[in-house]
């Protein structure tokens, strides 16, 4: 896949996005990475070099920050992100079994698997009294089961289609 940060014009646009952050905020490297991810959905090739330039640090410095944080992604996200809580409070109410069941549902349904990508576990969504908890795009799901997850994915797909 071609990076959206390649031509001189694209690079200048990105600099225009980042320069105000660097001027306003002390310690801006992580903020710049987060701004890039908000803009493109991931950190495309070429972004690290631009951030290094506007922040006046080395590319190694920026790469170090990029590679540290699990939120920052190297590749575009799936259309619908499904994240199941893998922490203790959800384990106590069947979180592990739900993750396994969801894996089977996705394995049996290639379309669903393509739309949602791999379940990326998350450690705690702060919904620990109503577990198992899951996050489908921005929608937090309590008392989650395979059926509520499926309908949340459908709702997210409909929302995505409406947005287009």
């Amino acid at each position, binding site marked *: 896949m071609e990076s959206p940060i390649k031509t001189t014009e694209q690079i200048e646009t990105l600099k225009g996005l980042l320069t105000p952050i660097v001027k306003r905020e*002390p310690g801006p490297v*992580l903020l710049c990475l987060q701004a890039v991810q908000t803009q493109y959905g991931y950190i495309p090739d070429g972004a690290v070099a631009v951030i290094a330039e506007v922040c006046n640090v080395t590319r190694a410095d920026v790469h170090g920050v990029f590679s540290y944080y699990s*939120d*920052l992604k190297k590749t575009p996200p799936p259309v619908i992100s499904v994240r199941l809580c893998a922490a*203790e409070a959800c384990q106590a109410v069947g979180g592990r079994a739900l993750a396994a069941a969801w894996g089977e549902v996705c394995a049996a349904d290639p379309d669903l698997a393509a739309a949602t990508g791999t379940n990326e576990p998350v450690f705690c969504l702060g919904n620990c009294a109503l577990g198992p908890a899951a996050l489908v795009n921005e929608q937090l799901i309590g008392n989650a089961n395979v059926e509520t997850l499926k309908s949340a994915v459908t709702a997210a797909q409909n929302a995505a289609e409406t947005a287009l």
Partner: protein
Amino acid sequence: MTVWFVPRDAAALSVGADAVAAALEALGEQVVRTGSRGLLWLEPLVERADSRNGTRVGWGNVQASDLRDNPLTETAANFLGVVEELDYLACQNRWIYERVGIIDPVDPDDYLFHGGMAGLQRALELSPASVITAVTESGLRGRGGAGFPTGIKWQTVAEQSPVPHKGDPQDAPRHKYICVNADEGDSGTFADRMLMEGDPFCLLEGMAIAAHAVGADSGMIYLRSEYPAAIAVMSDAIDKARARGWLGQGILGSACNFDVTIRVGAGSYVCGEETAMLESLEGRRGTVRAKPPLPAIEGLFGTPTVINNVLTIASVPSILARGAEAYAALGQERSRGTQVFQLAGNIARGGIVEVAFGISAHELIFDLGQGTKSGKPLKAVQVGGPLGAYLTADSLQVSMAYEALAAEGAMLGHGGLVVFDDSVDMAEQARFAMEFCVEESCGKCTPCRIGAVRGVEVIDDLLASDASENAEQLLRDLCDVMTAGSLCAMGGLTPQPVLSALDQFPEDFKRVAVRVDATAQGVVHE
């Protein structure tokens, strides 16, 4: 006129509160969105009053389908009566959470009407030194887990002079910071989130009091990315507070200048450790810093910095407004005031319980929580997050207070209790504690970075059918090294859940070996 109250707290939204609010509005009713009362098993909990500030009656587990033609009636099966008289709420002593679930979180007038800003007004009448004295005399200790006395921390920062950011020239602007740690990553804890979503002005008021007390000009809230609803509510509240003169230049007409920004985390648990949080706030990898220097002397961008948990800072407005003496009169030993306990996991009535220190885990789990959600016998309770010890069903008489828990080899942490029924495999939980440390270690110190990986391997060995004879001793030695040799609590406390599982539930570590054996022989199919 009739007013309906529907929570906008993320937990309530996770079980359909938005659809309920929409259904009420579709019937032409007036709806106010509030935080959650913290009776989470009843969410969405809808309340009704005859005026905005009248007595409220409630309905539990309301679904939009209940509201097709008529608003809720008092003859409905899910009618709860007067909400404040419910046993779960009536026994609480709410200081931090006094307005949560009652007010519209982003309405400054509602905040004022319910006693907001009284603490800051009182603080501004006092000298900074007197504010610190009040906080010290209240006995307030850090609610993030370490329990360090807040007054002493503030005093240390107050004694420092503001300095320019590290690397800036000497004539650059000089700063001191108030940093709020809202990186609530512990499983089984959600009190920071619910406070921020339910009463964000309380946190901002507490930060402004701290700023006045120590002479700080800047504040930052480090808020985890897993809490998008809290980020939205806090951002809205900051804008509104600025517009009211509650933040910015000359707060409430005083000489105090103080403003707050939010920085969002990026999915790293260890950034809840205070020095890793500073690194992350400065835009770097969230690795732990060696102490000294203490953050109070050389903290964010090299300036003197107060770092407090959300609940610590949110305790301060009511302490100032109601008096340090009244706060200190609550609790036991050196655990003064109230603690916001969070009942989570496999529990029938999960939620928020703010009471004085000293209540027993048994009372919390059985009297208030009414035991497991599954109805099966309780087997273990993890207190204080993923680095906290597992308690057995027999040891729940312990008082929930810093000293009493420490005497049991456990810790209060952030006040979360995660309940497990008898289907839990404690060997699996011990292994998970090590796995979690592998995933989340910042990598700075070897005992944590390598120790956790080795920990998973050794536990696997211990559980294998052909376990080495010395596997258990090896695991204990490894835990010893991690406890004594790690730079921060991540590596230092990961052995707590592991060893408590091993010591209190040894049969689980043997049973697995039998099961693995059986699986290998084709006897058991899983």
